C-alpha cells in the first residue's frame, strides 16, 4: 500500500489483488487443522528427501549383513532397525521419499499437462476432435488404472521414468474431463466473447482466461492425485513391475519385507505407515485446499 504510488499502473494493481486473494485462501486453509497437519507431514517428507544423504551416515543400498533384521527403537544408531540385508531402514525411507515425491510430482505434472491439453482441445473446438478425444478417454477409463499402469510399464520396461509416465497417462482422464467441462461452461460467457472480439487468439484465451477460471478444481484434483500416484507407484513396485531393487522405493521395501512377515514385521509396517502418511497428508492438503479455494463447497 505504501509503495509504487507513482507507478500505480494496471499490472501492479493486479499483483496486489492476487496477493490479497492468496492471503485470503491461506487464511481459510490455515483454519483447517487437518490441512495444517497434512502440510506439516509433507514438509517433513520434503525435509527427509532433501537431506537424505546428510541425516544418516549410511548408504541406502550397501548391504551390511552382520546387522541384518535389527528391530526398531533398540539401537539409536539404527533407529528404525535394519532390513534383510542389514541396510538402515530410516536411511532407505529418506531416499525413498525422494522417489515417491518425485513420482508424485512428475506423474501429476505429466497427467496435468496431458489432461489440460486434451481437455482444452476437446472442449474448445468441439465437433469431431472432441469426439475422438473423449472416446479415447472413455477407452482409457475402461481399463482399471492399475492394469493400465502394469501394461504400460510392461511395454516400456521397468524403471522410475517409465513408472512416472505410466501413472501420468493413466490418471489423465480425470483432468481432461474437468478441463473439458469447465471450458464448455465458460466458452460462451461474455468475457470470453469480449476477449475474442478484441482479437485474442484461441491459445491466448485458453491460457489467460479459461485455465485461471478452472484452476481451483484442477489444483484440488492434482493435490489429491499426488497421493494417488505415490500409492500407484508403491503398488507397481509391490507386485514387482515398478522400481527395481535395490533402489529404496517404499513399495519395493514393503514387497521384500513380505518374506519376513512373521519374524520382522517392521520391514513391512514401517514403509506401510510411511506410504499411508504420505497419501494421507496429500488428502488432507487437498481437502483443505478445496475448502479454502471454494468456500461454497464446504459441508
Amino acid at each position: 500500500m505504501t509503495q509504487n504510488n507513482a507507478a500505480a499502473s494496471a499490472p501492479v494493481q493486479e499483483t496486489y489483488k492476487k496477493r490479497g486473494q492468496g492471503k485470503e485462501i491461506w487464511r481459510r486453509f490455515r483454519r483447517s487443522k487437518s490441512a495444517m497437519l497434512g502440510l506439516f507431514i509433507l514438509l517433513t517428507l520434503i525435509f527427509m528427501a532433501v537431506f537424505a544423504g546428510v541425516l544418516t551416515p549410511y548408504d541406502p543400498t550397501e548391504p551390511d549383513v552382520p546387522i541384518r533384521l535389527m528391530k526398531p527403537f533398540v539401537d539409536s544408531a539404527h533407529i528404525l532397525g535394519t532390513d534383510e540385508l542389514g541396510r538402515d531402514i530410516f536411511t532407505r525411507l529418506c531416499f525413498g521419499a525422494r522417489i515417491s515425491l518425485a513420482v508424485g510430482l512428475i506423474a501429476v505434472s505429466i497427467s496435468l499437462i496431458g489432461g489440460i491439453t486434451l481437455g482444452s482441445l476437446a472442449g474448445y473446438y468441439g465437433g469431431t476432435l472432441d469426439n475422438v478425444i473423449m472416446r479415447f478417454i472413455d477407452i482409457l477409463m475402461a481399463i482399471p488404472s492399475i492394469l493400465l499402469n502394469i501394461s504400460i510399464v510392461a511395454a516400456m520396461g521397468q524403471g522410475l521414468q517409465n513408472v512416472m509416465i505410466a501413472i501420468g497417462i493413466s490418471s489423465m482422464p480425470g483432468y481432461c474431463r474437468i478441463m473439458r467441462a469447465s471450458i464448455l461452461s465458460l466458452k460462451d460467457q461474455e468475457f470470453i466473447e469480449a476477449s475474442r472480439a478484441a482479437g485474442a487468439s484461441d491459445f491466448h484465451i485458453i491460457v489467460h482466461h479459461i485455465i485461471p477460471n478452472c484452476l481451483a478444481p484442477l489444483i484440488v484434483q492434482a493435490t489429491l492425485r499426488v497421493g494417488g500416484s505415490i500409492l500407484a507407484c508403491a503398488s507397481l513396485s509391490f507386485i514387482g513391475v515398478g522400481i527395481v531393487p535395490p533402489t529404496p522405493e517404499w513399495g519395493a521395501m514393503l514387497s521384500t519385507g513380505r518374506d519376513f512377515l512373521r519374524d520382522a514385521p517392521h520391514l513391512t509396517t514401517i514403509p506401510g505407515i510411511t506410504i499411508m502418511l504420505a497419501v494421507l497428508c496429500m488428502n488432507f492438503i487437498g481437502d483443505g485446499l478445496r475448502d479454502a479455494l471454494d468456500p461454497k463447497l464446504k459441508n
Partner: protein
Amino acid sequence: MLKYIGKRLLMLIPVLLGVTVIVFTLMYITPGDPVDALLGDAATVEAREMLREQLGLNGGYFERLFRYIGNLLHGDMGISYATKQPVFTRLLETFPNTFKLALLGVTFSVVFGLIVGTISAVKQYSIFDYVFTFICMIGNAMSSFWLGLLLLLTFCLKLKWFPASGFSSPRHWVLPAFTVGFHSAANIARMTRSSMLEVIRADYITTARAKGQKELAIVIRHALKNALIPVVTTIGMQFGALIGGSVLVESIFVVPGVGKMMVDSIKSRDYPVVQGGVLAIAFFFCIVNLIVDVLYAYIDPRIKAQYKSGGRQQ
C-alpha cells in the same frame, strides 16, 4: 428402458475394440522376443519360424492385430507361452475367483459404506461420526497391499483365526474380501456422508418431518434414495479401483484369480495371458458400468424419464 440398454450395449463395442487395440499395441511394442525366451539361443531358424507361426507372432503389426481381433471373436485369445494352454481356458479357470472376490468386496464396501455414511451424516458431530470419519480417512490412504499383509500377519499368523492360504471354505474369503473392499468402503462412506448431509437439509425432508413422519422412516424412505444418486456413480467408479486392487490382493492371499495369473505372467513375460487378463477385466468393468447406469435410472425418476423420451442428452 430395454432400448436404452441395447443402445448402451452397442456403444460398448467401440470402447472394447479400443481397449483391445491399446492393450494389443502395448504388448506389441514390449521389448524382447518371446521366441528367444522359449527356445534359447541354440534353436535353429526353422524351429524359430515354426514356433513364431504357431504363436501367431509372424507378420506385421496390422496383420497381427486383425488376426488377434478375429480370433477374439471366436473366443480365441492366443496360447500361453508358459503353459501352452489357450489363454481363454486359463481365464475360465481364474475369472470366477476374481469375480467372486470382487463381488464379495463390493458387497462389503457398499453395505459398510452406506450404513456408516448414513449414520455419520444423521448423527453429525457425534462420537460415531468422528470415529468413522477417522477410519474412513485411514481407509482411503491405506494401500490395500499393506492392509492385506497386516491382516495376514495379525489374523492368520498371530491369532490364527483365519487360514492363511487355500480357498476351500467361506472363511478363506473373509480377509481377501475385506482387504479388497476396504478402500472402496471408505470412499463410499465418505461420499454417502456428504451426499446425505446435503439431502437431510433439503426442504422435502422438512416437509416429511412436518407430516409427522418418524426420523428413521424419513432417513430410509425420503433421504436415502435421494442421497444414493451421487453415491451410485461413486460405487461404479470404485468398482474399477476394486477390481484393480484385486490384482494386488490376489497375490497377497494367493487367490487363484485373474490378477495373480497376470502378475505371474508379467514376471515370466507371458504376454498373451497378460493381454487376455486386462481385456477380460476391462470387459467386466464396462458391463458393471452399464449396470450402474441402469441402476441410476431406476433410482432417479428424472433420468428414467429422459431415457423414455429417447436416449440421454449429453
